[in-house]
């Protein structure tokens, strides 16, 4: 049994360790150390909680059992999950944080005495507001993340689901939550508390269904942010500094990531949230034009020949590479090229893939050294001086239309200047437009060679032809 003051100091220490955990991520060299700080912070927080309760009755046995069960499931998932499935894993984890926040809030509401918040039917006003906000945000995080998970996993179509009056409905439900919390404070009614949670679950679903697949980087970051705010809300209820600090850190982290992702698409946060992007690509005249324009297509042999005679190659990976699991074959290809003294670098657009940093993790998995991988602004000028751009599974992020056509929905989005390369190899399954539903001008340029095939199969064929 330790005093409340001592416990508070330990919680502060664990909060500081969490800050250091994030700080470590500023460079891959310090990142592993940072992760150990995070683990240490978590152990301190859990041990101090046990010590400060000091009630070592039989229930503690059950607490440990449940902890071990959860830990075993978590460890199993962490070791088994393929790197290509990271986006859905993160979405799934967000949903668990959200649900845990809801359950802690419910437990606190049903047994406020255990948390020193007053008695049933007479909970302190501030605590009641904090726990209902924590529960509402947690519930939105939970159901929103479940929808994001289903979309990323492909169980649910990635296409946006929209209906008329959607935004008005969301607005009414959002205001409804606040009105109900107000009445909850007046009446302390259990029924109103449950209603708040149920409506929040509904809002989470409604909020995410209109958002399409390629906007997922924003959605995941946003849900990341929500899970932080939910934790902070519970932290205020429990008067726990570790939880308040962590909630604030995670909340601002998610918010910054959402901002970076929105900026990389030149879209406002509001327009992403309102959703529906990429839904109405019924521009028939565009499709007709596309059929008439000539396209140069080639095979693996042509591609191998082009790259063998190049002196520098830039690889542009995208979501298609993740889907085809082509990262290992790609690395093999690059190794062969390097043996021929060809300079190879990777160019990564911030929104390539389905979550922030998605491509970097896949390349790291394939043992690509991180100092060969460059961000958009660091490499964009190099395209003009390079011989070959190898675009694998990316599309909209290379579309020159974003720079030339003010009418295009992606106008103004920063894109990779792939077309400035002497020649462009474009691995793609078909001519179908990308997620944004816009035809890519790059397909029809004279210096573009289309390689129609599955990304992994094409890369493997090129490897064979490089011998």
């Amino acid at each position, binding site marked *: 049994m330790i005093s409340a003051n001592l416990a508070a100091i330990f919680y502060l220490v*664990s909060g500081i360790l*969490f800050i250091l*955990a994030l*700080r470590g*991520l500023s*460079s*891959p060299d310090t990142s*592993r150390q940072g*992760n150990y700080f995070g683990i240490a*912070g*978590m152990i301190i927080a*859990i041990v101090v909680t*046990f010590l400060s*309760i000091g009630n070592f*009755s039989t*229930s*503690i046995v059950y*607490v440990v059992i449940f*902890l071990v069960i*959860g*830990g075993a*499931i*978590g460890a199993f*998932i*962490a070791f088994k999950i393929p790197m290509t499935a990271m986006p859905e*894993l993160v979405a799934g*984890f967000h949903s*668990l*944080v959200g*649900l*845990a926040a809801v359950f802690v809030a419910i*437990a606190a509401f049903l047994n406020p005495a255990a*948390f020193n918040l007053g008695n049933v039917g007479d909970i302190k006003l*501030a605590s009641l507001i904090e726990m209902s906000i924590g529960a509402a945000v947690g519930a939105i995080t939970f159901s929103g993340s479940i929808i994001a998970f289903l979309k990323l996993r492909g169980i649910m179509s990635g296409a946006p689901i929209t209906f008329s009056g959607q935004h008005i409905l969301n607005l009414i439900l959002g205001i409804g939550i606040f009105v109900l919390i107000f009445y909850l404070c007046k009446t302390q009614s259990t029924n109103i508390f449950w209603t708040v949670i149920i409506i929040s679950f509904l809002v989470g679903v409604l909020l995410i269904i209109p958002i399409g697949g390629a906007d997922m980087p924003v959605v995941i970051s946003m849900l990341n942010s929500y899970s932080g705010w939910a*934790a902070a809300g*519970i932290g205020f209820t*429990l*008067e*726990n500094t570790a*939880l*308040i*600090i962590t*909630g604030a*850190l*995670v909340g*601002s*982290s998610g918010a*910054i*990531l959402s901002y970076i992702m929105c900026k990389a698409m030149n879209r406002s946060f509001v327009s992403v949230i309102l959703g529906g992007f990429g839904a109405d690509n019924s521009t028939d005249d565009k499709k007709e034009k596309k059929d008439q324009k000539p396209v140069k297509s080639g095979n693996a042999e042509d591609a191998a020949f082009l790259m063998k005679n190049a002196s520098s190659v830039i690889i542009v990976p995208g979501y298609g590479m993740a889907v085809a699991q082509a990262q290992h074959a790609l690395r093999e290809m690059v190794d062969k090229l390097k043996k021929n003294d060809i300079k190879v670098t990777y160019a990564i657009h*911030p929104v390539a893939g389905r*979550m*922030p*940093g998605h491509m*970097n*993790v896949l390349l*790291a998995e394939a*043992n690509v*050294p*991180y*100092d060969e991988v460059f961000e958009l602004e660091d490499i964009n000028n190099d395209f003009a001086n390079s011989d070959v751009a190898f675009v694998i599974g990316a599309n909209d992020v290379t579309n020159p239309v974003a720079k030339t056509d003010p009418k295009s929905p992606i106008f103004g989005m920063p894109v990779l200047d792939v077309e400035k390369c002497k020649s462009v190899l474009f691995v793609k399954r078909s001519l179908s437009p990308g997620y944004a539903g816009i035809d890519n001008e790059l397909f029809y340029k004279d210096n573009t060679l289309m390689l129609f095939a599955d990304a992994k199969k094409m890369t493997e064929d090129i490897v064979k032809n490089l011998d």
Partner: protein
Amino acid sequence: MEIDPFIFRLSIFILSIFIGYYVVWSVTPSLHTPLMSVTNAISSVIIVGAIIAALAGTSESIFNTSSIFGFIAIILAAINIFGGFLVTQRMLQMYKKKKDKKK
């Protein structure tokens, strides 16, 4: 008049948002995925609340309505803590420099 303790917690909260803002901006973009998984793991410090709720049951009734929610929340948060930290560790192990690779 004394300052309400809530104001102190609010101060901690707001200062932490600022710390988070500056720390996260310095995270290199190539580590954004591990950033998400580690923030996931640390936000599961909510397990603190779950443990308090679960231990609130009396020895006669370990599982009452309130503590059951606590116990379920422990499982959920524990999945996240172990899963989040371990998957982050697994990812970070893969980020290597050229030199390491040739060894």
